[in-house]
Structure formats: structure tokens, C-alpha cells
């Protein structure tokens, strides 16, 4: 077990390393660089040249990459090329915000999705199953900014229950943050619930048709015991995978939500960094996002193994 975890972590680090090289290369291939991006229409050949020398952009790509890598391994993520602020100091509060929003949405979405998924599976074909499917599919088919605007229009502009700007600041109390971030969390919940719900339903349905489940019912076990102790553990593997995937999406894929609700997360930081070709910023965000994916997938893999005795006890 321990060997398994260590192997996974090692492979995860390799993946991250590959990700940083890919992102660095991709950014280099894009036309333009920090100098031309910042100066924009204001760029003349002299100001561009001056800018590049000042930032060390005239050195070859691999030199700059290894310099970044050696600094990053020591914990120094460098300073942003555009505004000279330390990347680590800027990204940390944004990462906390992103995790807060993701956690907030997950805490609502995951229990609802699993509960409704099980209910839908048990009552297959009945109205509650159909209703759950239609509503969740509808929510996931609509673009997130559309849901967001409708929620803002109804709850913020008209009813005034929640603010339309979800910007959080460090001096805000916990419950104030909960209130301010409610609308984006609800939007995200609507986005991710469908996938988890349908996977839960499909997985449980597949198990429920197995002979040993029928045997458990024939033995006289109550329904919830059958589901919780016999069906779910076997249905768990795909459900855990889908939850991990959606949690990763909640961290990585919410730039549009950040823009619409003006929420200071890592997504907006990365987009701004890419449009200005600010490499330290882009690399740091890539590390954060890649790390989130790797971590969540690793935890998911471990959980799946722990839940399945066959895999747990092998070798």
C-alpha cells in the first residue's frame, strides 16, 4: 500500500514536470512576448528592445526554463514580469479563493449528486428518476455564464438576496464569504451535479442487477442495508473517479465564472498571464492546476483500491 502511494506520487511529479515543459514550450510558440504584450500599440523597436534586455528575455529559451525550474524547486516561483510582484505571494490568496469556491460547490454538489443518483437508480423508470435526469441534463447543457446571468438577475438585481459581485477580501469574515460566494457556488453546483448523478445512477443500476443483490433481498435484508453495504462499495469505483474529475474541474475550469462574478481566483490570474505572456505567472498557474489534477486523481486511485478488497490485498 505504501509502495503504491509512493509510486503514484513519483509518477505525479513526473507528470507535473512534463506539464511545465509543455506549457513553457506552448507559450514560447505563441507570437509576441511580454514586451510587445504590455506595450501593445505603444511599442516601438527601441522600447521593445529595452524591455527585453531588462527582463532577460533575450536569453535562449532553455536557459530561462532551467533557471525557472531550479528556482521553483527551491520554492521560489519568481516575480511576475509585468508588475514585478512575487508570484508566490500573489497566487497564494488566489489559490485559497479558488479552493474555497471549489470546496463550497463540492460540499453542496457531491452529496446531492450521489443521493439523487442512488434514488434515481432505485426508482428506475419512475417519475423521480426521469425528473432527476431531465433537470440535471438541462442544467449541464446550458452555458455556465447564462445560468450565472439568470441567477444574478433574479437573486441579486431583483430580489437582492445575494450580491452580484462575489469578490472576497482578506478582511471578510467566514459567514460573510459564504453569503457573498453563494451565487457562483450554486452556478457551479448546477454544472457538475449532472455528471456525477448520472454516473452514480448508472453504476448503481449495473450492480443492482447482479445476482448477489437479488440474493441479499431474498435473505430478507432491508433495502438501505443492501444498498449501503452490498451495492455501493462495488459501485464506488466509477463514482469516485467521476467525483475526482469534477472536483478537478471545479478548481481548473471556472474562469468564466470568475469573470462573470468578479471572483479573484487562479483562473483569471492565468488568463491575464497568458494574454501578457508573463511566463513565471503562467508556469506557476500550470503547476497549481496540474498539481490539483494529479493530487485528486492519486487520492481517487487510492480510495478505489481501498474500497475493493481484491485490489487491496493483491501482492
Amino acid at each position, binding site marked *: 500500500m505504501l509502495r503504491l502511494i509512493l509510486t503514484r506520487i513519483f509518477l505525479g511529479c513526473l507528470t507535473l514536470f512534463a506539464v511545465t515543459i509543455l506549457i513553457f514550450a506552448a507559450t514560447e510558440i505563441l507570437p509576441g512576448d511580454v514586451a510587445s504584450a504590455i506595450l501593445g500599440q505603444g*511599442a*516601438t523597436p527601441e522600447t521593445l528592445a*529595452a524591455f527585453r534586455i531588462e527582463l532577460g528575455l533575450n536569453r535562449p529559451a532553455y536557459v530561462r526554463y532551467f533557471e525557472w525550474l531550479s528556482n521553483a524547486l527551491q520554492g521560489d516561483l519568481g516575480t511576475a514580469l509585468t508588475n514585478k510582484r512575487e508570484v508566490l505571494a500573489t497566487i497564494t490568496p488566489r489559490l485559497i479563493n479558488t479552493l474555497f469556491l471549489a470546496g463550497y460547490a463540492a460540499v453542496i454538489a457531491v452529496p446531492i449528486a450521489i443521493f439523487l443518483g442512488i434514488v434515481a437508480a432505485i426508482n428506475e423508470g419512475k417519475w423521480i428518476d426521469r425528473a432527476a435526469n431531465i433537470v440535471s441534463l438541462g442544467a449541464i447543457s446550458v452555458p455556465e455564464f447564462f445560468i450565472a446571468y439568470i441567477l*444574478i438577475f433574479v437573486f*441579486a438585481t431583483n430580489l437582492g438576496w445575494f450580491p452580484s*459581485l462575489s469578490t472576497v477580501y482578506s478582511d471578510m469574515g467566514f459567514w460573510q464569504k459564504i453569503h457573498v460566494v453563494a451565487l457562483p457556488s450554486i452556478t457551479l453546483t448546477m454544472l457538475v451535479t449532472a455528471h456525477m448523478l448520472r454516473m452514480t445512477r448508472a453504476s448503481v443500476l449495473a450492480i443492482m442487477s447482479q445476482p448477489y443483490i437479488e440474493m441479499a433481498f431474498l435473505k430478507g435484508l432491508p433495502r438501505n442495508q443492501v444498498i449501503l453495504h452490498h451495492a455501493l462499495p462495488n459501485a464506488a469505483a466509477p463514482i469516485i473517479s467521476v467525483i475526482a474529475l469534477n472536483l478537478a474541474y471545479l478548481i481548473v475550469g471556472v474562469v468564466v465564472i470568475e469573470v462573470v462574478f468578479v471572483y479573484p481566483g487562479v483562473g483569471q490570474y492565468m488568463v491575464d498571464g497568458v*494574454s501578457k505572456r508573463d511566463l513565471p505567472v503562467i508556469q506557476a498557474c500550470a503547476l497549481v492546476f496540474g498539481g490539483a489534477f494529479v493530487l485528486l486523481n492519486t487520492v481517487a486511485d487510492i480510495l478505489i483500491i481501498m474500497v475493493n478488497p481484491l485490489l487491496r490485498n493483491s501482492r
Partner: protein
Amino acid sequence: MENYLNKLKQLEPLVVTSGVSRRDFIQLAMMTGLSVTAAGSLFSKAEAAGTPKKGGTFRMGMEGGSATDSLDPRTYADSVMIAASLAVYNGMVEFDNAGNPIGELLESWEAKPGAVEWIFNVRQGIKFSNGKTLDADDILYSIGIHRSGDTKSPAKGILAQISNIKAISPSQIAITLSGGNADFPVIMGDYHLVVVPNGFTDWENPIGTGGYTLASFEPGVRLVFKNRGDYWKEGRANFDTVELLNIQDVAARTAALQSGQVDAVNRLDARTVDLMKKNKDLNILRTKGTGNRFCFVSRVTSPGFSNKDLRLALKWGIDREKIIESVYSGYAVPGNDHTLDAYNPYYNTDMPQRKYDPDKAAYHFKKSGLNGEITLSTSEGAWGSAVDCAQLYQESMAKAGITLNVKKESADGYWSNVWLKEPFCAVYWARRLSADQTFTQVYGSGSDWNDSDWRVPAFDKLVEAARVELDEEKRKAQYFECQEMIAEDGGMVCFGITDYLDGYSSKVMGTQAHARYDMNDLRIAEKGWFA
């Protein structure tokens, strides 16, 4: 009509505190869309009722910032940072609402005949927020950071005309230019030129002479300012606290204003502003035709576009009114194929406004002897609605029998890859500080930004002569001729100049139209107060 009283309240104090003349007042009021008679009667009604009140927290939500922003004046490019800068710093020259330069930290100036040698007087008795008194060395340093050999400041280009600058005394500066320039004080009003103490480099903790001090700064998110208490300008810097939130999305900005989360926003959406106007708690301020100039520019050295008749066909074949109605809901004025707007004193009022004429377009196209398709490169990266405008252009050209292809380019890297390279592409131009600067930068033979590649020695001579011409009538005639040359022979189809649309809570006073930028020249935090 429901906004009449509100507008009256806004314009009153202008008459009292800055002593603006009746003529300028009417021009101002007309910028907000009032008629001449209404404006005239407003002026007559204005009383000394507009004394600014102190206090309150002023929250602004603005587009034009990013997570890569900095308070280093050499990096300013967009509205959020400029507005922030004017809260903590002062400029050297500011502009009154009609667009004339007036002294700020350089309180007055004079030129020796020929407009080559200038003396500027430094305002006395001004203290920075750290207690230091302002003197000529601070001014020299503040200009110097934009001029020094390896600077990356975009202001370097406009300051290149300075051949020598020195302090004659702690309160006077002498500037010698490489050539005469009667508009030089206007150049000193560029938004990059703000004043910091001599030798200052700690941009994270700005020290300035402005009305507020910086309390916190999260780039791309928010700036918070606190009133410094002893501001040298009477009746300005009236709020206790100012919060400047960066809200890039227009729907989020609009919702924030409507729900009262912010008191002021910039760049409202033209398509929803009519609905906003119905809201009694809001005051929508429209500044007509001083915004960005939207153009389709052809390079006259490219094959095909070197033919003058083809260029004329391009200019006659665009339906300006339709684009303004459809894309901007009427919130723009037609451009006349050059980049000056009607508020510039040298705007050519003799030239008729070119209108859509498919017959003339077809005639010139035939006369050019060319056939085949014309390709127009456009992108959302040029400006948000550039693709929509291009598509309407395509339709109007089709009616003249000319095939226009619309080529959509990627937004990312548009300014590096498409502008100045493709033979026919979409460009926007921001307002320049003076007619001279406009003609030199956009159409001058020596300019790197001459995107139509139209370099005509006779034009340059005309601009140079006008630059030192102190006789107003002669100067006007010269600039009129310049505009005729550009509109007739140049490669640019400038079809519209947008209005600025600011939104304010009705509690905010001191909001006036300004000839230069929106949000009262981006100084609303300094100039405004709560009723």
C-alpha cells in the same frame, strides 16, 4: 426629461467653482445630449448651490485593468491604472472640461516667440504625502524616467521633441524643443506624466501630491485609497475612502451599479443603456463622440490599395449610419475618414460628412480598373465589435457590386501580427492630445504608427508649418487642409467615433462630460462628492 433636474444639479457647480464661460458650458452640456436652448437656460439657472460636501466611501467599478497592473507610470495603458494614478499623484498639466490645458503642478507657462523655448512655473507650497515640498527637481525626475535611454515608457515618443530640459530655479523649469510646437503644454498633460519625488522608485508604496494615499492594491481586483486630509486643491478629494474595483465583464458592471454595490461604472453597454436610463436612482452620463475612433485602414503601398479610386470606393461604400444604429445603438457619431473629432477646435467643419453612396462606390471601383475581391482582416482583438462592423461593411459593399471578404483573425496577438502588416484591417485609435499630435502620429511620414503607410511630403510640411503657427486663423486653415488631404487621398476609412457612457448613482455629484476621457477625465475620485 426626468434627468433634466439631475443634469442641472451636476452642471451647476461647474459654473461656480471653475468659472467656465457660457460658451464652454453650452458646449459641455451639448456633449451630454442636451439641446442648445436647454443648455443655455441651464446656465442661466445655475446658482452658487454646488459646494462640494466631504465624506463617504466612493466605490467605482471599472473595466480596463488586469492582474498584471502596476503603479509605475511607465506601464500605464488603460483606464483602471490611470484613474488610480490620479488619486494618489497629480499630473503636471490637467485639462478643463472643454479640453483646454490648465496648470496643475506646473501652474503656468510661457513660450518665447517661435515656440521652441518654454518656461514652466512650478506650483509652490505643495507637499508630498511624506512631507517633502515639491520643487523643480521632482518635476525633472518625473519627466526623466520616461526619457532616459533605456526606458520602456510609451511616453518616450512624445517627449522625444525635448532637446534640453533644466531647472532654472527651484520653482522654474526651462525646456528647449528640437522644433517649434505651439501645443507643447498639451503634451505635458499626457496621462503617463505624473509627479513623484526626486529619485523615487518604490512603486508599490506610491508617494504623490494627490488627494488620497494608497491603502491597499491587489492588481486586477481592487485598489483602496484613503483621504490624506490636507489636499492643496479646494473642493477636490471629497471622499473619505475610495474603492476602485476592476470589473471587466460589462454585465457584471451593470448589475453591480443597478444593485447599488458600486456608485460609478465606466463603459456601459450601448445596447442596455436605454433601459438603465429609466432607473431613477441612476444617472447615465453620455459624452458624445470623444471616444475611440473606429477605422478600417488600408495600406496605400500594397498592391491594389495604391490606387486612389479604389480607396475612394472603400470610403463611399461603407454605411456609417447603419453601423452606428445596429452595433452601437446610436451611441456614436459618424467619422469623416480622419481621426479628429468635433470637439477639437481645428475640426474641419467645412467638409461635408461623407455618407453611404453605393453608386459613387461602384463608379470609383470601376474607374480603378481593378476587379476581384478585397479582403478585410478583422478580429475581436481589434475592438469588441470589429467583426460585426466588418460584416455590415460587407453587405453595404455588396450593394455597390464590390465583393468584400471578411477574414476573422485571432484576437491574441492581433496588434503584433495583423496591424501594420495586413493590407486592409480594423484599427481603433484613441483620442490624441492635439491636432498636431494626431497628424504626426497617425499620418506623419516619420511615424512608426502610420498604419495606412501614407507618406506625403507636402502633408508633413503643412503639419510642421502649423505646429509653430501662432496665428489662429492661419493655423486653422492649415489643419483644415490637412484633413481634406487625408479624407480624399489617405487609406483610412474612419466610420465612427464612439460616445463614452458612464453610469453613476444619482447621489454622486461632480460628474461632467469631459472633452478628453470618460469618468470626468478619469478624475471622478478627485472631483466628485456625495450629495
